[in-house]
C-alpha cells in the first residue's frame, strides 16, 4: 500500500495535497499497490470524500486532544506510528514547506532516508528517483535504499487531476501522543492580508531591476489591482529593498502558478525562473528582446515597461467601461 499524507488548511485539502494524490495514483500503479491516504488532526467527511475523488481507497484519520493545530513533531510522530502499524510499502507527501518538514521529522524518528521533491519515482528493490535540485534548475537522478521509502513530490511537479474516483472508507487510526509534541505547535497566527495572495493569484505582475525604483512599482500595483492579481518581484528587487521579501518570486521566494505571469523588466536569471516556471502562460515586457525571460515567454512586448504598462492599464479600463 502507498500511503499519502494529506496536508490540509481551514478544513480543505491544500492544492499541493491534491498534487501528491495525483502523483501517488501513478506511483501506486507502478508499485502494483493500493492508494491510501492519511488525515492528521481531522476526520471530516468532506476531506475523506475529496481524497476519494483522487483515487484513495481508504483514508486513515488520526485525531487526538493534542492535535489541535499544525506542528512538525505532532505530524512526524503520527506518521512514524502509521509506518510502524499500518506497514505501508512507501509513504508520500507533497513538497510544500510543511510536507517536507513533517516528512523529514518522521524520517528522523524512524532513522530512515527521506527523498525530498521528486519529479519521478520508480519502485524496485532499490528505488530510482528523479528529484529537484537548485529549485528546479537541475534534476538529480538518485537511488534510494530503504525498508519503507519516504518521499515528497516537488511542488507543481504534476498538476492536480481528479481520477479513478473511489468512495473512500474512513478508518480511525489510534494514535499515542504525549505533551512533548505540542512544543513545536503553532501558537498563534497573524493574518496580514485577506483575499488573493501571491501563491494563489490568477494574475501576477512581476517587476525586476528594470522597474528602476520602489516608486516605479506603483504602475505594476495598479495593473495587478485591475486584473484581480498580485505584484511579484525578482531577488534583485528585494535585495535592493524596493519590495518586501514576501513578494519575491524565485528559488528563495514564492513558487507561483498563475494563469498568466506578466514579467516586466525582469531578465530571467535562473533563481527567478524556477519560481515562475509553473505559470500557465508568460508575457514578458522588456527592452531587450534577447533577455532570458523574453525567449522563454509565450508572448512579449519589446519596450520600456513604464510606457507599456500605463498603456495596458488605459486599454483595460476602456474595455471594462
Amino acid at each position, binding site marked *: 500500500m502507498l500511503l499519502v499524507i494529506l496536508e490540509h488548511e481551514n478544513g480543505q485539502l491544500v492544492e499541493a495535497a491534491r498534487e501528491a494524490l495525483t502523483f501517488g495514483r501513478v506511483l501506486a500503479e507502478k508499485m502494483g499497490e493500493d492508494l491510501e491516504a492519511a488525515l492528521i488532526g481531522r476526520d471530516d467527511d468532506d476531506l475523506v470524500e475529496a481524497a476519494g475523488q483522487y483515487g484513495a481507497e481508504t483514508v486513515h484519520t488520526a485525531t487526538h486532544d493534542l492535535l489541535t493545530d499544525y506542528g*512538525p*513533531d505532532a505530524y512526524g510522530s503520527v506518521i512514524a506510528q502509521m509506518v510502524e502499524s499500518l506497514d505501508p510499502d512507501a509513504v508520500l507527501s507533497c513538497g510544500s*514547506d510543511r510536507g*517536507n*518538514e513533517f516528512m523529514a*521529522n518522521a*524520517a*528522523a524518528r524512524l532513522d530512515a*532516508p*527521506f527523498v*525530498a*521533491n521528486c519529479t519521478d519515482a520508480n519502485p524496485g528493490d532499490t528505488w530510482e528517483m528523479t528529484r529537484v*535540485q*537548485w*529549485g*528546479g*534548475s*537541475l*534534476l*538529480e*537522478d*538518485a*537511488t*534510494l*535504499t530503504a525498508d519503507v521509502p519516504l518521499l515528497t513530490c516537488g511542488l507543481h511537479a504534476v498538476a492536480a487531476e481528479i481520477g479513478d474516483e473511489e468512495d473512500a472508507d474512513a478508518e480511525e487510526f489510534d494514535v499515542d501522543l504525549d505533551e512533548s509534541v505540542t512544543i*513545536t505547535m*503553532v*501558537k498563534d*497566527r*497573524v493574518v496580514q492580508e*485577506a483575499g488573493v*495572495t*501571491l501563491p494563489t493569484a490568477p*494574475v501576477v505582475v512581476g517587476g525586476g531591476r528594470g522597474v528602476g525604483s520602489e516608486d516605479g512599482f506603483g504602475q505594476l500595483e495598479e495593473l495587478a489591482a485591475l*486584473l*484581480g492579481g498580485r505584484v511579484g518581484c525578482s531577488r534583485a528587487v*528585494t535585495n535592493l529593498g524596493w519590495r*518586501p*521579501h*514576501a513578494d*519575491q518570486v524565485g528559488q*528563495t521566494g514564492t513558487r507561483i502558478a498563475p494563469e*498568466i505571469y506578466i514579467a516586466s523588466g525582469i531578465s530571467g536569471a*535562473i533563481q527567478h525562473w524556477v519560481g515562475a516556471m509553473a505559470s500557465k502562460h508568460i*508575457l514578458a515586457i522588456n527592452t531587450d528582446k534577447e533577455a532570458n525571460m*523574453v525567449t522563454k*515567454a*509565450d*508572448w*512579449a*512586448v*519589446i*519596450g*520600456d515597461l513604464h510606457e*507599456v504598462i500605463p*498603456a*495596458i492599464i488605459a*486599454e483595460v479600463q476602456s*474595455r*471594462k467601461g
Partner: protein
Amino acid sequence: MKILCCVKRVPAPGAKINVTADGQDVDAAHLGFTTSPHEECAVEGAVQLIEEHGGEVTVLTLGTGDAEEQLRYAVSVGATHGVLVEADTNQWDPQRTAQAITAAIRELEGDEPFDLIMFGNESADAGGFQVGIRTAMALGRPIVQGIKGVEISDDTITARREIDGGFEVYELPRPAVLGIKEGLNLPRYPTMKGRLASKKVELNSITASAAEGGQARVKLHRPEETVSETVILGTGAEAAAAVVDVLDELGVL
C-alpha cells in the same frame, strides 16, 4: 549567549547551471562560490542577536578545505568563530551530513549547549530539506522550519514563519534549533575591520566521519528546456491592445 550557524558553500550561478561531464557535480569552472542564501540570512540574524544580547556566533560548515572561504566571510560580517568539519566533498547525502554535524556539535558543546542553532531551511544546491531537522532531533532539541523572524527572551525563542497571507508564531524553549529562510533580514556587507578579522581568525577543524545514508546520487542533469515560440505582440505602448486581447482570451480581464 552562544549561537551556532550551520552554512553550506555553493556555486553562485547566473543565467544557467552546467553539469560536469561525469554528471556528479555542478560545473563551477567559471563560477564563484557563495554561502547558500538562507544561511547568509541566518548568519546575519545571529550577529544581530549577539549585538542586542551579547555573546558569540560560531559558524560551522561541512566540506572540503575550500569552504574556509565561507567561514572567513561569515567572520567578516560579524561571526566570532569558524569551524570546518572536514569531509572529502560538499555533497554527502543528508543522513550522513546530519550525523557528522551532530557529532561535531556535541564535540564543540561539551556540557554547555548553544542557546540557538540555525540552519538554512534547505541548501540552495541539493535542497534535501532535512539536515537541520535530523540534527536537531538527534540532539533532542525542538526545531521549526521556514523562519523569517526571531526574538529571544530569557527562556523562550519566538519564531515567525511566513504563510500564505500572514505568518504563524512558534514559541520554543531554549536551547532550540531553527531552519531560517531568506527574508529574515538583508545581510550586511563586510567592513574593513571585519575583513581584517576574517584574515586573522583561527579556524577550528574537526574530522568528520559518518556512515552513508540510503540516498545516493546517480547523476545530475538539466531538465528539458521549455522551448517556447515567443510571439512578439509589438513594440512599446502600441502593443497594449494586443496584450489586452491576450488577457481577454485567457479570461483574466
